[in-house]
């Protein structure tokens, strides 16, 4: 069972890592909400596998879920920035 502090740490770590930063950047590249969310989620999943050395046994499901969720949220924010701040 993951503690609250563990949870906050994992979320914060993901926000300042690939899912948060690259997810935001990818989201800013499209006006399509679904595509943005998919790209963000993919970054979250890819990051978890990358940091686990591509070993399935070392992938924690909770880490994977949090990374994907942060990626989706970050890319959605990026997409919102595209809608609000660009005319194209």
């Amino acid at each position: 069972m993951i503690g609250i502090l563990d949870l906050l740490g994992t979320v914060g770590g993901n926000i300042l890592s690939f899912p948060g930063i690259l997810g935001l950047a990818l989201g800013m590249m499209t006006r399509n909400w679904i595509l943005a969310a998919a790209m963000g989620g993919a970054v979250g999943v890819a990051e978890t596998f990358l940091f686990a050395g591509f070993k399935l046994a070392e992938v924690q499901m909770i880490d994977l879920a949090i990374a994907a969720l942060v990626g989706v949220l970050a890319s959605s924010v990026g997409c919102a920035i595209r809608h609000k701040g660009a005319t194209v």
Partner: protein
Amino acid sequence: MAENSENGKPGNPIRRAWNWFWTPTAVLSAGFVLIAGFLGGIMFWGGFHWTLELTNTEEFCTSCHTMETNLAEYRTTIHYSNHSGVRAICSDCHVPHEWQHKLKAKIMAVKDVYHEVVGTISTPEKYEAHRGDMAAVVWRKMKLSDSRECRNCHNFKYMDFTIQETRAAAEHQRALDENLTCIDCHQGIAHDLAPGYQERYREVVEELQASNALPVAPSEDVAAIRSYVADLAE
């Protein structure tokens, strides 16, 4: 945009700033914005990383009153002063090197500030009352991570058992054979131990085993050594 169009009075400054922020620029080229953003990004990231590294210094870690006890204990250990002149400071053992783990550790360390403020371990008596619990938290982390922070400096791959003391060599061999991790034997390497620490450590391990949280496969260096030894045997 700067004025309220209905009554002619200046608008809310926050609203004006918000509108300015989202208005497309008419005087800057895309290249200018990109280059400026890139440079700004480098400066921000450099500053962020520099600040993060400042929080890794011994001075920062021990600037709180509650850290005085463990600092005094650490200063009597081989990790503080030794024949080789290599020192492991607080962050070497308590802060992971890998970015994702480091950030998580930094965010979780906010609890230390909270406990400093509320005075959870502000007196020697309180400190001793919490010593076992604090140690158990660190043991749990180390057991879960296969003593990742120890392995930043110590690695079975780099050990020459033939120049170790006989007992140490035998125990390290046992650790390899039984898939043990550093903290399984080296509790209290930098801080004093609470009475009954062995029972407490056993509880931590049993709790992790019960939740199937412990890695079942040997670490990469152990696997590499076993493979190497197997090749030699053949």
